[in-house]
């Protein structure tokens, strides 16, 4: 069974952490993954940096720019994690925009993911229809779980369609925003989380965008299986470096 599905069967609320590969330093990738697992994170999203990250706010934009300046490339990322499965067992997901994956070759990229032990992919600008028509077979061939996003504006009909195509978890974007926007949740978001929970989807949901603390993690997971922290972790890395990762993770729950 895919490591993501295994993890989703565990009883606790899942803490997933995003970081940008190649940031703060080019060779930090494996170190960050190992430290996150050791500190108690449940899942990791490895950001493949892109020059034009449309769905990201300033924090992840800047970490992406810095990573690219550091010399990060798709090949470089795969070479950095070629032996990662010798040291960690945590589910690993690559989050990247579609163009770099398209240039690498979608099948070659998926094959490489399988070889290195990547469990899933989040490609925010690959619409679910395109995935289904052109890429689903490839993902299945390499046992990769596709993760799709929903937002407060997504219609129920579309959510059900996404639920149908999904086989891991659904990434529930907490509010209409790019990453790293507001933090904490009001009634509006809580109602939205509850509304989605009441749909009784077959696919668990994990909340992303706007989570930065133990309090917001608790709120986000009240009606969902887990939550993803990205920008807040990048900020922590910027200020405190790779050595202090456990301090960040441990206070979250």
């Amino acid at each position, binding site marked *: 069974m895919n490591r993501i599905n295994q993890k989703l069967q565990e009883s606790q609320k899942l803490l997933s952490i995003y970081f940008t590969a190649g940031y703060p330093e080019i060779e930090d990738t494996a170190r960050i993954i190992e430290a996150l697992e050791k500190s108690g994170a449940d899942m990791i999203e490895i950001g493949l940096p892109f020059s034009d990250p449309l769905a990201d706010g300033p924090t992840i934009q800047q970490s992406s720019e810095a990573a690219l300046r550091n010399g990060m490339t798709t090949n470089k990322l795969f070479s950095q994690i070629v032996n990662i499965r010798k040291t960690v067992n945590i589910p690993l997901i690559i989050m990247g925009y*579609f163009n770099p994956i398209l*240039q690498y070759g979608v099948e070659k990229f998926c094959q490489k993911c399988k070889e290195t032990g990547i469990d899933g992919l989040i490609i925010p600008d690959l619409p679910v229809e395109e995935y289904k028509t052109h890429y689903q077979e490839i993902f299945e061939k390499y046992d990769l779980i596709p993760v799709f996003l929903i937002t407060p504006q997504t219609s129920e009909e579309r959510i059900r369609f996404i639920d149908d195509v999904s086989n891991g978890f659904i990434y529930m974007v907490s509010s209409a925003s790019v990453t790293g926007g507001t933090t904490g949740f009001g009634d509006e978001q809580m109602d939205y989380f509850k509304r989605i929970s009441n749909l009784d989807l077959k696919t668990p949901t994990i909340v992303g965008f706007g989570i930065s603390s133990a309090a917001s993690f608790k709120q986000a997971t009240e009606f969902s299986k887990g939550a993803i922290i990205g920008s807040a972790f990048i900020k922590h890395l910027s200020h405190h470096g790779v050595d202090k990762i456990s301090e960040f993770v441990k206070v979250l729950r």
Partner: protein
Amino acid sequence: MKTTYQVDERGYYGDFGGAYIPEMLYPNVEELRTRYLEIMKEESFQKEFKQLLKDYVGRPTPLYFAEGFSKKYNTKIYLKREDLCHTGAHKVNNTIGQILMAKKLGKTRVIAETGAGQHGVATATVCALMGIECVVYMGEIDIARQAPNVARMKMLGATVVPAKSGSRTLKDATNEAIRDWINNPVNTHYIIGSVVGPHPYPDMVARFQSVISEEVKIQLKEKEGRENPDYVVACVGGGSNAAGLFYHYLDNEDVGIIAVEAAGEGVLSGKSAATSALGKEGIIHGSKTLLMQTEDGQITEPYSISAGLDYPGVGPMHANLFRTGRGEFISVTDKDAMDAGLVLSKLEGIIPAIETAHALAIFETRKFKEDDVVVINLSGRGDKDLNTYIEHFNL
């Protein structure tokens, strides 16, 4: 079945187009996709659109036989005078259409991206006309080099927001506008300035600009006794003025299509914006098209002396014209474009925008028959480029 170079039902021109957008944009783009054609067909929409083009923009724009220019190049050259549109370029045809679209969709706020500021000014203009809030994203570097257009937008009541990410030019201004739309999904309409972006934008913008070739057909009939020229010629950055001139001739293969790109300092100089020559298939701003990028799929920064052609991608319609061979693509260097701008100024008393000057420059190398009828889109006037002309020619 007859080959068509128009968009298909899925939003593709051959291999190019589509809507590669994050889910956060899906409701907005889907609303537009399902409604744009029906809204554009409404009688009240058409009536208001045509009225504004006539009374406010100043359409139809003349189709002018450029006698001196024709004599120099020994062929029959007509200029479609989009430079005489209100605000000085063809851009306003699209912003008029889209502001009416925004009203029909019940939107109360408009955003736009701009490079040199022409589309920003055209958007700010129609927002002032309609009393709608307007926010224009512009690269921090462009703000510094296009101060007069920034001032114009401010006079028109728009808020100009500097794009400080990435290379701080047009592509980043577009990213920022898209992010704004993600953050404001309900009340905001995004007026894209060219035939780029996710479907239905390339088709919608092309339809609003198609008034250009609609008029050419009527005007050429009056002047030459035939609707079809032998060639239509336009400069291409994203490609909106070209899409407008080509539109009604796309599927008529008796009419040659010539698209002129900016070679910058030379196609192989490393400082160029010739996307058809240098680009590879990929995704930019929600569209699958040709774009300039690294081997690793990172989008690269183009260069041209003309800010309006300084875009790393090209609209999917044009990418398809290139790949299928339906269009002939020529690239023109900064220097040759500037020279052509001077030639037109002296022979015809018309100072063209530097973008347009690229299209004019092809006659130095691309020869036409004496009785060929060639229509060039004179897409904009050169007032905005005076400083560049002054510096280049030491005027």
